């Protein structure tokens, strides 16, 4: 059973090894010629500042975004087994899923109509 995962573990090991190798070797083989341009913030970026204007706090609006993310994440999790077993589940499986998606969509409609998705 676990042998199925051997290639994945191998790939992980390979990826980790490559990352480690790159980090470890780069300082020795890479040329180091610093200049002002390399130390600048990237195009359209700004110089990092210590504290954002609001004293280190995120606006509470992100909470709404995160909550919506979770709601739809969970919906997807339920969709997945349904999709895999769709042949066996038949029409009532579809009905059950439609009812579920319908209820979750209510939440979305509410959020949208009450302006929860507008940013400013």
């Amino acid at each position, binding site marked *: 059973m676990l042998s199925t995962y051997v290639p994945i573990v191998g790939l992980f090991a390979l990826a980790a090894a490559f990352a480690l190798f790159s980090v470890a070797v780069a300082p020795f083989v890479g040329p180091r010629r610093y200049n002002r341009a390399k130390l600048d913030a990237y195009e359209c970026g700004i110089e990092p500042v210590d504290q954002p*204007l609001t004293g280190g706090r995120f606006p509470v609006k992100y909470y709404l975004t995160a909550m919506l993310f979770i709601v739809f994440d969970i919906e997807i999790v339920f969709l997945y*087994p349904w999709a895999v077993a769709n042949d066996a589940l038949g029409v009532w499986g579809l009905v059950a899923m439609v009812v579920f998606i319908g209820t979750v969509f209510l939440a979305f409609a509410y959020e949208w109509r009450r302006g929860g998705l507008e940013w400013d």
Partner: protein
Amino acid sequence: MTPETAGVVIGTGEAVIFWILGPVALAGALGMVLSRNAVHSALWLVLTMLSLGVFYVVQEAPFLGAVQVIVYTGAIMILFLFVLMLVGRDSSDSVVETLRGQRVAALALGAGFAALVGAGIARATQDLPVLGLEQVQGGVGGPSSGNVEAVAGLLYTRYLLAFEVTGALLIVAAVGALLLTHVEREPGSRQTQKELSRARFLTDRPQTLPGPGVHARATSVAAPALLPDGRLAEDSFATGIEPEQVEQMPRPTGREQLGSPDAALGSLDPTLSDTPGGRTGGEHR
């Protein structure tokens, strides 16, 4: 811990993974409780959750493992971190005890509870035969079908009602989040695109503001644009950002004057020119 069995023999791979990741999961849990910094706590928790995800996969429940990683380490942890950032990364717990002896009592009771449940579980599972998941997850078409089908077979039959009612839970969660965080705008207090554009054409400046002075010589959006005479274009200051004096790169006039291409891109010397816009003096003109 890993009993020898009637049904299924636990493979070496599984045992090895358990003994490696078990301590890791435990360390993550301890780290979460003991960290002073809330963000560190959250990251420790991620470690524990990832280890648990691997455990599920190893115990032949790959779907559960994937869900653990996607929902818990993905969504839930994002929410945790957001909430930590909302509260403020630097705000720390008050260490004042409002009830005297509370902490000691909590420690003692917590340790007692852990010992009780731990001992109980250890005793109850001591000589338990191990059934492979194949025997447990009946579901579709018997033991040969996969984990996901087995989950679907239960979720959409025995637990169909629970599944549908979860929808109600999700609605309450979304409604509650909006209710507590979103201050509704008064109707009519927001201008439409049309009104905004009308208002703009009534001003002296119908066109857009000039962009920041971003070009190949200064990469920050904080660099103001320059007018032809070298003055700063005040319209181009980005909102909320202090305009910065950016050291301009020397103007290349020829390879022989500048030496290597790297030297042409400026020095690490922090001296800024005092000319507006950071133009260096005359020698390159």
